[in-house]
């Protein structure tokens, strides 16, 4: 195996004076998949933001295909192949659905035809403005918008949060398709632990800003004791 796609080495980072992540290390191979689990407020979103370059790094390094990108600004990381789907979806309200998709698109296999095939509903809504969409449509649009930049890595921040079960099923099917396709790596932050572990190959659990546990996803899925301890009632509640 050559260089990993993404590698974090002892990353300590946060916002201004507030340090949120302490000594986080992780590795993701090309086309790999990693579930990022943990209770609310343990730093999962902050970790994604740190990978994108939005937080202040105190120490440690972020490596992309072996190259240190710790000081590279977010828009450059995006052009290098980082793709980020924000938790709040953050659709551009004054752009149409189609403009949201094409505004930052870069050439590659993911074009309008490809994302419309994955999310036909977006095709029906292509002339609508970004602020006229339901939550599920926004999530599809945010995911499709990131895919249109043809990233090598997709960071998904709680894609299923607050959505109806039918929509969740559709999104899970889309993520399965992406992973089976073997052209993209995914880091998935998800409150629905069992969904995440079913999709991904590896998993890490964060607690108070550090990696409390790391294991292959199928192993962690059976390790109810660890899940109970680190993720809590979620497991019982969502089964």
């Amino acid at each position: 195996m050559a260089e990993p796609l993404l590698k974090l080495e002892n990353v300590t980072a946060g916002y201004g004076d507030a340090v949120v992540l302490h000594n986080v290390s992780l590795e993701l191979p090309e086309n790999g998949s990693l579930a990022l689990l943990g209770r609310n407020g343990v730093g999962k979103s902050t970790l994604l933001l740190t990978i994108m370059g939005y937080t202040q790094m105190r120490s440690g390094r972020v490596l992309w295909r072996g190259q240190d990108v710790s000081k590279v600004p977010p828009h450059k990381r995006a052009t290098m192949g980082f793709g980020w789907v924000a938790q709040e979806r953050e659709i551009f309200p004054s752009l149409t659905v189609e403009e949201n998709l094409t505004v930052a698109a870069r050439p590659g296999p993911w074009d309008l035809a490809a994302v419309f095939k994955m999310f036909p509903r977006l095709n029906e809504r292509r002339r609508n403005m970004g602020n006229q969409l339901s939550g599920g449509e926004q999530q599809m649009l945010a995911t499709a918008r990131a895919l249109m930049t043809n990233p090598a890595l997709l960071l998904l921040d709680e894609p299923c949060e607050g959505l109806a079960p039918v929509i969740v099923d559709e999104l899970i099917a889309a993520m399965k398709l992406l992973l089976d396709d073997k052209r993209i790596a995914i880091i998935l932050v998800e409150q629905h632990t069992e969904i995440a572990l079913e999709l991904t190959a590896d998993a890490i659990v964060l607690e108070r800003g550090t990696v409390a546990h790391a294991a292959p996803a199928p192993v962690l899925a059976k390790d109810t004791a660890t899940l109970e301890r680190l993720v809590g009632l979620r497991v019982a509640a969502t089964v």
Partner: protein
Amino acid sequence: MLPPFFGVLFDGLAYGMLLFVLSVGLSVTLGLMNFVNLAHCAFAMLGGYVTVTLVNEFHWPFLATLPAAFVAAALASVVLERFFYRRLYRASDLDQVLLTIGFAFISVAVAAYIFGTLQQPIQAPEFLRGSSTFLGLAFGNYRMFLIGVAIVVTVLLIAGLEYTRFGAQVRAAVDNQRMARGLGIDVDRTFAATFALGSGLAGLGGALAIEIVGLDPSFSFTYLVYVLIIVSVGGLGSIAGSFAAACLIGVSDIAGKYYAPELGAFLIYLVMVVVLMWKPAGLFGKR
């Protein structure tokens, strides 16, 4: 001669078109980027002096100096943006006002030092002088030319912002800078280009203004007042709003001076107060 009513309306519209070209750039930078640039008319004045110099010293044809005025103002704004303005995008309004009004004062002093404080004379080309008669009414050629330029600018701007990828990137960056960066849009460069475009239009406006209102070093401040009124009456960031407000202010200014000389230049302030009491966000404003 035109009957007074049509004459006032036509002159007012032409004057409004001039004010529109001067102000639309500020509407974009203030409305879209939330940057208070009180040196906007200093860029306009720069465009004016570029045209004066090229016509009088280098004998360029007037029309050829217009793109030069645009480019000079745009380039000057890129330099200022890169070294000064960019640092203040996230600063308070007061900081932005203090910096940019400082530049406006500097521009007045520099213009007075180089060109003196007298009005700069300029001779418009033959075909833009005099007037043409349609349906028995005489229209000033230069004023018709102004209206034509303003319509072209409006169409290009709306088309550029609404229907091009660059326009979509500007709107995306304005909607949500963080997300725009996260998708790979170089927000700093997008804003710098937008800013240069707005300043370039001001430069064009300054060049077009010489024939109508003259040019001296006080231009930076005299027209800043008009431009700010138009931006607030039209609504921040709205091109159509600036267009409507510029027509309204242009016509009221000329009408005020013609029909009520004792009220004179104050009519536009009354119009502004009435519009803003009726619609505090401006005619086409959203916030």
